[in-house]
């Protein structure tokens, strides 16, 4: 029989557990708006009973642990969707920037091509007219300038993306080193069979941030520790140690992502780093190469056509180049496109050297319907490019919307598991408060009983 003092200690355990429960609620309320925080709940259990003969007497309440409520599967799904979403967002931002220069049908390269052939057409009824010849050169100049602008703006975008790559890699490194140090802390705690609680929240949160940057895979090592790799298996964090990625300047200034000496650039798919690399190494080169082929095809075809006729000089000579000869293979042709012809009388409109002949203008004009790039006419090739840019952007935009929906759905689900509900906390607090008050009342009662016992019935409180 434990007696009054036993009851006192039972009541005391109630007081202390209620206090700890209140503390848990209070912590939940404080973190109601903390990103990545998982609500905690105090898990209690009855104290081991004291068995006396046939009697089994309770010994109060024990706080078993403070448990964080989270769904690990959901967290993994969130990581994956975050990788997808960040990658798509990074791509969309760049694509939207890229497509602005292909946006207008009444200006830009497409209109320049149309205007150039129109200027040849205007020259046709009056082939020796110097003003009309000058407008052909002016139209050619506009065409070259817009090709240059388009190529340069792709180049600028590419070099900005290189800055993003370097920045993202340094963020990845900062996150992995934080994760490694948390991992060490967790392994110490979990080895001692403690719940890592908010440390795991921090860990989850950092992994989520890392997922925004790169396609990271999490392997639980069993003791609350984790191992992180990129999806191609490059280790980022293992056994409490982080492995930093680095960048190296590759061909054309393109920043390559290195794990030690291994170039892992092309294997990165998720996160903003993956998206950035996708745009820099796939989309921009693809658009750039289409521009180059069109520029090279047009310049070559027009130079060839001009070479078939005679200019307006006395005596007339065979036509020379209108545009600088494009680089062999066409690489960089759009950026390098220039009109080298400065004298309008050098346009070879004549097919026989007579100043009034427009015979060779037909050859120059015919370039408009020749397959100059990718088996397509100049305007078809450009129009196809516009479609390519537009549809890539619009598809990516649709993918971003879809991914955002999924992400939102997952976040709602996470909220329903781990989110702090103020109503719930308030209700719990009422409950804990009542329990605390009750325990306190029990103590008062025991106190009074003890006074009775000590003073043998004289009603004097023990001070």
């Amino acid at each position, binding site marked *: 029989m434990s007696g009054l003092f036993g009851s006192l200690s039972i009541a005391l355990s109630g007081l202390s557990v209620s206090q700890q429960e209140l503390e848990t609620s209070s912590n939940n309320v404080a973190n109601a708006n903390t990103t990545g925080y998982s609500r905690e709940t105090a898990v209690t259990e009855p104290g081991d009973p004291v068995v006396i003969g046939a009697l089994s007497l309770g010994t109060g309440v024990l706080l078993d642990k403070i448990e964080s409520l989270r769904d690990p599967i959901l967290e993994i799904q969130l990581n994956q969707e975050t990788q997808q979403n960040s990658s798509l967002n990074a791509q969309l931002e760049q694509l939207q920037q890229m497509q602005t220069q292909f*946006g207008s049908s009444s200006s830009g390269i*497409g209109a320049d091509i*149309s205007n150039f052939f129109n200027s040849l057409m205007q020259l046709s009824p009056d082939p020796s007219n110097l003003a009309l010849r000058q407008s052909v050169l002016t139209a050619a100049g506009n065409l070259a300038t817009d090709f240059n602008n388009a190529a340069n703006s792709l180049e600028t975008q590419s070099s900005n993306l290189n800055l993003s790559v370097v920045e993202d890699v340094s963020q990845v490194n900062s996150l992995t080193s934080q994760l490694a140090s948390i991992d060490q802390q967790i392994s110490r705690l979990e080895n001692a069979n403690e719940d890592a609680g908010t440390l795991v929240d921090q860990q989850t949160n950092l992994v989520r941030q890392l997922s925004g940057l790169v396609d990271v895979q999490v392997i639980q090592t069993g003791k609350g520790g984790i191992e992180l790799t990129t999806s191609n298996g490059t280790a980022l964090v293992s056994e409490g140690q982080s492995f930093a990625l680095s960048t190296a300047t590759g061909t054309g200034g393109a920043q390559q992502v290195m794990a030690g000496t291994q170039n892992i650039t092309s294997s990165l798919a998720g996160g903003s780093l993956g998206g950035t690399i996708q745009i820099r190494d796939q989309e921009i080169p693809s658009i750039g190469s289409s521009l180059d082929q069109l520029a090279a095809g047009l310049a070559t075809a027009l130079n060839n056509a001009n070479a078939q006729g005679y200019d307006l000089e006395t005596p007339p000579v065979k036509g020379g180049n209108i545009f600088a000869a494009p680089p062999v293979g066409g690489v960089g042709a759009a950026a390098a496109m220039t009109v080298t012809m400065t004298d309008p009388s050098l346009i070879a409109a004549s097919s*026989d050297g*007579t100043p009034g002949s427009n015979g060779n203008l037909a050859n120059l004009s015919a370039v408009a319907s020749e397959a100059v790039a990718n088996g397509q006419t100049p305007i078809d090739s450009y129009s196809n490019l516009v479609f390519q*840019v537009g549809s890539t952007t619009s598809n990516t935009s649709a993918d971003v919307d879809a991914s955002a929906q999924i992400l939102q759905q997952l976040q709602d689900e996470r*909220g329903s598991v781990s989110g702090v509900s103020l109503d719930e906390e*308030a209700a719990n607090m009422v409950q804990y408060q009542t329990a605390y008050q009750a325990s306190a009342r029990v103590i008062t009662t025991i106190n009074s009983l003890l006074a009775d016992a000590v003073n043998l019935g004289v009603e004097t409180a023990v001070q």
Partner: protein
Amino acid sequence: MRINPNPMPDLLAALNQTELEAQQATLEISSGKSVNEPSDNPTAAALLVENNDEATFNSGYLQDLATINGQLSLANSTLSSVGNALQQAISLGVEAGDGTLSDSDRAAIAQQLQGIQTQIISLANTAYQGNYLFAGTATNAAPYVASSTDPSGVTYNGNEGVNKVSVGNSYQLEVNQPGSQLFSASGDSVFLALNNLIQAVQSNTGVGTAVTSLSAATNYLSAQQVFYGNSMSQVESETTYLNAAKLQIAQQQNTLGAVDMAAAASNLSQAQTDTQAALEAISKFSQDSLFNYLT
């Protein structure tokens, strides 16, 4: 099931979406275009490039037709003047063939004929915007120069060149006839016939024959003039066709890229209503929890 206690991100996402829609509708209304960026409608954006190309070519053809028309009608009216002058020469020749005329009368007629010859040379050297119309493609120099040694009284400095100008997709019009085909065609040269007539009148031999040849040459020339008449009517019908096509191209551009104002306006007002609703929801979702009711 426990619900997500924090719906704020969802509400903000909804607000963002409605604001995006409002922005898109506003952009469409203010620009009058439904395709402001290729991604708005990639197919239409690509077709608009082609459409602009067609419109540019269409207006180019129309401009060319106007230029050609000026050229053709000047050539045509010049040939009419040449025809009139030749008719006058034929009348004079018939008059000179009358045996009753005195030598001095014939000399006067011969002088008149020489005047007509000079006039025709000058007409054959007509230029349009600095280009000689009847010089073939050697348009920078007068094609006919008077010559006392040449039997026709003139030498031809032009060539046989004929220019073609595109006035439609794979539709080319010949826009000139060289003087060598009009005035000094072998067998039917008006210059040769006229010069022969002058000499016949001066020598009073074979005037009748000379008049007959000049008539034949004149008929040949007026038959050649039909070319210009035909070309001008082709220019006219092509102009009509291209103007109709222009409307069609403009209509296609509208269909592809112009905004449906009624739809855009309704989208805008819908988006505004949705935005209001989302704002309302957010403002209602205050931190109204059980805590507010505990005392």
